[in-house]
């Protein structure tokens, strides 16, 4: 049913690397896996040489129990305070000796395909009873183990950003730099933007980062305050939750931000009216608001954030501001962390040119470096297009009632030929769309039950091959501290809630999912 098992394919590539390494033992003995590998049994999957060592820095949770309990070949780079909730060793592993014996016993009895033994010993009745008792105990233990593992592996979620873990590692070794700090800011922000971690986790990590930022800024003050042109400055900001607004017009940013557009219900006429009222309340001239932010009147910009916050409060948008960081390259360039996240994601999933995923990855990587500002700007331009497309798709889905309630979940299927549908064949873009759509739908419907339903979204992946990409996100009002998603063993991709299927299998998949969730 599933078209490709990307997870499998990926690990096959790794396997080959590992296998080849046996010829170059001198060169490859250590493997570093970044944002992959934690939640699969690596020894089983890769069958590596006995002296290969894997360092894993991965946010995917839950971590496979064998990875946790093997520390000769698997080194997990995970922050101590990340709550892993791993079951205790004795609950999931048993002593060798008992294992073997029980295995022997059951092996002889259950599998009738072997030749009978030439000799047999007669056991005591007591011994037989004891054996039965032990087998019973073992079966009980196994049932309990299955239960424990089921509870442990039931949901998939994300832990502390790999970027932050790596930065702290560098810091411990006194190798941290300001660039690295900025990248870990981007890593954490990405988790927040793409809804991988709950808000509380974001706030905690931001607080950690803030301590690092002030430490670094303090260190720089000592050095005679010289601000060279390419100097980099990171500042903590309590900034607006408006996407890319410093690189757009305020008006467009408000229209294309999930938070504001859902609060106003901008897809309705009423919503548009409300937006006008909001702008009027702020007392900003329309001409200025539609102006490029850079060219806006300095006097307006001065206390813009406070003005917007005040009005937003009146329109019951209490959380229009959020803790984040900004970076300054020289005097001219200022970026919010979320700006860079959107730009990098847009470059990573660029569908405009038929470039290979590798090329896109390299470009996305380049845009993070401050010597490649042109890439960053290109990324921002792409991100704007993407956000507009998302906004339009959300509006059309809501207005044409494309979201259906399937019982245990909401379901929306983007049809072929929908504008920008190619954009949504990529997991990050589809995640963002899903998130906006669910929020918008919950705002627009009177049905209270929708708040507690997850959303499953399907979009065409490759029209010629007739494949679809299916993605699920947790309910909007998920109060649990983990962003949980029911993992089903079939899902693949690194965003494990993403699956790729054949078009005609969609029905089957949905039926199975309904059965699973209800």
């Amino acid at each position, binding site marked *: 049913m599933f078209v490709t098992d990307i997870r499998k394919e990926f690990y096959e590539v790794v396997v080959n690397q590992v296998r080849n390494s046996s010829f170059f033992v001198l060169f490859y003995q250590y493997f570093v896996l970044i944002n992959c590998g934690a939640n699969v049994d690596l020894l089983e999957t890769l069958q590596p040489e006995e002296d290969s060592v894997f360092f894993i820095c991965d946010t995917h949770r839950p971590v496979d129990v064998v990875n946790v309990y093997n520390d000769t070949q698997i080194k997990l780079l995970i922050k101590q305070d990340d709550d892993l909730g791993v079951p205790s*060793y004795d609950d999931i592993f048993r002593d060798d000796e008992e294992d073997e014996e029980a295995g022997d016993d059951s092996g002889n009895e259950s599998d009738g*395909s072997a030749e*009978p033994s030439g*000799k047999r010993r007669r*056991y*005591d009745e007591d011994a037989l009873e004891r054996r039965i008792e032990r087998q019973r105990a073992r079966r009980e233990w196994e049932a309990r183990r299955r239960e424990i593992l089921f509870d442990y592996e039931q949901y998939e979620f994300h832990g502390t950003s790999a970027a932050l873990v790596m930065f702290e590692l560098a810091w411990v070794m006194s190798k941290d730099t300001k660039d690295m700090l900025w990248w870990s800011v981007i890593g954490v922000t990405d988790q927040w933007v793409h809804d991988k971690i709950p808000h509380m986790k974001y706030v905690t990590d931001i607080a950690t980062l803030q301590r690092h930022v002030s430490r670094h800024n303090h260190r720089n003050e000592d050095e005679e305050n010289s601000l060279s042109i390419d100097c980099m400055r990171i500042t903590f900001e309590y900034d607006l939750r408006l996407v890319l607004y410093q690189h757009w017009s305020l008006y467009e940013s408000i229209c294309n931000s999930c938070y504001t557009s859902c609060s106003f219900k901008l897809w309705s006429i009423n919503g548009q009216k409300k937006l006008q009222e909001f702008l009027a309340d702020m007392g900003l001239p329309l001409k200025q608001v539609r102006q490029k932010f850079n060219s806006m009147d300095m006097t307006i910009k001065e206390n813009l954030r406070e003005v917007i916050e005040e009005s937003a409060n009146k329109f019951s948008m209490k959380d229009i501001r959020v803790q984040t960081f900004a970076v300054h390259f020289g005097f001219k360039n200022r970026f919010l962390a979320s700006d860079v996240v959107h730009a990098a994601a847009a470059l990573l999933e660029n569908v405009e040119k038929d470039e290979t995923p590798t090329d896109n990855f390299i470009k996305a990587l380049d845009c993070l470096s401050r010597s490649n500002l042109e890439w960053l700007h290109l990324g921002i331009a792409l991100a704007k297009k993407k956000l507009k497309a998302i906004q339009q798709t959300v509006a059309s889905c809501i207005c044409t009632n494309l979201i259906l309630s399937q019982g245990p979940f909401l379901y929306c299927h983007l049809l072929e030929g929908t504008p920008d549908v190619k954009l949504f064949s990529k997991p990050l873009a589809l995640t963002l769309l899903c998130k906006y759509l669910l929020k918008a739908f919950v705002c627009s419907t009177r049905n209270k039950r929708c708040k507690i339903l997850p959303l499953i979204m399907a979009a065409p992946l490759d029209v010629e091959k007739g494949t679809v990409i299916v993605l699920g996100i947790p309910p909007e009002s998920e109060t649990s501290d983990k962003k949980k998603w029911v993992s089903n063993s079939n899902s693949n991709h690194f965003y494990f809630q993403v699956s790729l299927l054949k078009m005609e299998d969609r029905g089957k998949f949905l039926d199975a999912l309904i059965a699973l969730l209800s």
Partner: protein
Amino acid sequence: MPTENLSDKRMSKFKNKGKEPMKMRDRRIAECVELRKAHKVESIMKKRNISSVGDEPLSPADNTDNKQVISETIQEIVANVNGDCPEKQRQGCQAARKLLSRERNPPLKEIIEAGLLTRFVEFLGRNDDPTLQFEAAWSLTNVASGTSWHTQQVVEHGAVPAFIALLASPMLNISEQAVWALGNIAGDGPSYRDGLIDCGVIPALLARLTPDAPVGYLRNLTWTLSNLCRNKNPFPRFSAVQQMLPSIIQLLHHSDKSILSDACWAVSYLTDGPNERIDVVIKTGILPRLVELLGFEELTVVTPALRSIGNIVSGSDLQTQAAIDAGVLSALPQLMRHPKSSVQKEAAWAVSNIAAGPCQQIQQLITCGLLAPLVDLLRNGDFKTQREAVWAVTNYTSGGTVDQVVHLVKCGALEAILNLLQAKDTKTVLVILDAINNIFLAAEKLGEVDKLCLLVEEVGGLDRIEFLQNHENNAVYRAAQALIEKYFSEDGDDQCLTTEATDSNFVFGASDLQKRFDF
């Protein structure tokens, strides 16, 4: 008959060649995996030692007392058993039996070294004390269940005649224990087996085979009989087999699964030999019942029944035909689709041997619909099963008529075996190349080599054959090269044209082939 000789020669070529090294290889792989697993567990344990609170050996008392306590108990047993008090003797014997019946590390060697066996064998003859007889018989049974050395100790202490005498005991539990002990001795190998037969064990056993015997007793009896049929080099002699066969056949109609299983195993041992041995079994008329047992649900019955059938169809053409006449071919497709891969493998092995027969038998494979499941196994079976299925294809293509070969290719067998050319196992690759060669020979007869070349190329077979020219094994390399040179090189073209011209009267065959190449 020259034809039979010929086919026999061919069969010996196909049936036994290359099996042993393959088995060994499988075992090696299994061992590797085991080691790797063990190592993994070990690493997990290491981690555990770091984090665990205190990992003392489970119960120190348990470990240390073992050796000491045992030697003390044995001393006590020796004292009791060697005394004259019947009560003490019973106690001592029972204590020994309990030690020997423990699940873990029964002290077989210690008991033997304490010199207890002489007394135990003596006790077997104590008809005045059935309890003592029973405990001694049980103890000796368990000693004989050990290694060959352990069994040898029991035999050398003169236990065999004593046990055979005990078979006639009026106490059923004692007689049953004697049956069990004799089974252990017979199971040790051909020499003790024949020793027992010389001592007249068979009539004594068969005397106890009565309709009113309880099931548990019959199970032991059947198992002991099966051990008397077991082992080669040499086989049990004909007279003994003739003596046992009627009873085994009788047991094959019992309703108890465990009895059925052991009786089937007995038949499988008897058929696992030269054709004269197979003949003895066939003459009993048991084939229809064996075929019936193939349809049972219990794996413990199906496995030995299938093994017996497999042995029989590996015999002469006449013997194979007898199995076919008994309806084997209608039972096999189901077994080839059995959920257990071990059953699939055995079924494929049986098919491969039927396919090694004359073309009439091959025709029956087609008629009974065995080709479809065979191709399925080639595609989806586990490797051992695929290997047997490959043999079936090679045998089929070497003995089948041109039409039959064409039919097999139509069923998708060619594509399936071409896919298997990637197998790591050299022998299998060679067998496949053989089959491909046979198929080409058939195509040559039809003058359709060009089309076959095209088909092989289309399904990616040519690439694989070409690739095999780099194979480390010399025979594979040469076979692959021969195929390429003969059928796929440029100057092969002329040859094809000429054969086509000369064989132009094969009109029906050619049109047949044409249909095939449509897809």
